[in-house]
């Protein structure tokens, strides 16, 4: 039923350029898309909102390419991941690549501390900062957004076996991190 109403809204946007229909879609999906990007950017609200805006603008201009095979949210997440990936690629072109990727991640987490509201989010983003970009995307898509491996592969454009490897490595790193920081109650 939910996907039927989504399809109806998408059709109205694609055929009649109905802005009200698109407004409803943005309202409905802004939270999961912004949360996904917030986790990918380690809690940087300003950056994740910019990327989320780009995501919805791209969705609007390419709405005729939505075929309705996957859900609208899955399609949006795919665009969001591509927008984030493009941003990282541009950023890597600008920033000096001498830095250790791990240091870079922790630095990003530190700089975003000002935008965080609760200690829970702070813990979450600090933990996600130890992961590489692809690992973080796969882990958040599975453990927070609850997507199966097949959907994650389609969204990120990464082969399923590589997604599995990213998930395994990411989960190993996170388990190690959480245990070292006493989240298992042994501190």
């Amino acid at each position, binding site marked *: 039923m939910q996907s039927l109403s989504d399809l109806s809204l998408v059709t109205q946007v694609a055929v*009649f*350029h109905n*802005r009200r229909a*698109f*407004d409803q879609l*943005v*309202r409905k999906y*802004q*939270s999961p898309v*912004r*949360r996904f990007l*917030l*986790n990918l950017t380690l809690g940087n609200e300003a950056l994740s*909102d910019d990327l*989320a*805006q780009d995501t*919805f*603008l791209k969705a*609007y*201009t390419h709405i005729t390419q939505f075929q309705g095979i996957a859900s609208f949210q899955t399609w949006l997440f795919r665009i969001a991941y591509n927008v984030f990936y493009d941003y990282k690629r541009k950023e890597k072109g600008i920033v000096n690549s001498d830095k250790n990727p791990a240091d870079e991640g922790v630095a990003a987490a530190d700089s975003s501390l000002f935008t965080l509201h609760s200690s*829970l*989010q702070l*813990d*979450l983003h600090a*933990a996600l900062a130890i992961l590489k970009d692809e690992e973080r995307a796969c882990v958040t898509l599975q*453990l*927070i*957004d*609850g997507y199966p491996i097949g959907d994650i592969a389609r969204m990120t454009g990464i082969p399923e076996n590589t997604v599995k490897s990213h998930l*395994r490595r990411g*989960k*190993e790193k*996170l*388990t*190690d991190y*959480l*245990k070292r920081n006493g*989240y*298992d109650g042994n501190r």
Partner: protein
Amino acid sequence: MTEIDDRLLEQFFQPARAQQVEDNGFTQRVMGQLPDKALCLSHWWTAFCLLSGLLLFVVFKGWEPLLVGVWSMIRMVTHVHPVPFFMTLGVLSCLALLELVHRMERMQL
């Protein structure tokens, strides 16, 4: 490497799953940045032209010259003049091919 502790990870990510991001004017900002209204206007203009065309077609009985044209084409085919017939067929095929290529390009965009 440490063995994966699924229970610990599940517990750690549980609050993040329930997190909802408030809109706080985000939708309004996105709607304000949508591409120019000119695109929307062009669609209305296309619809207007289409309706006007249909109206004029009905008012001036556009089907009459159309039927004459179709009838003469049928007569031409039945009289078997292979050269003009195959020339017409060739032109129509080229047009269809061009339209197909154009559509495929648009789909790729």
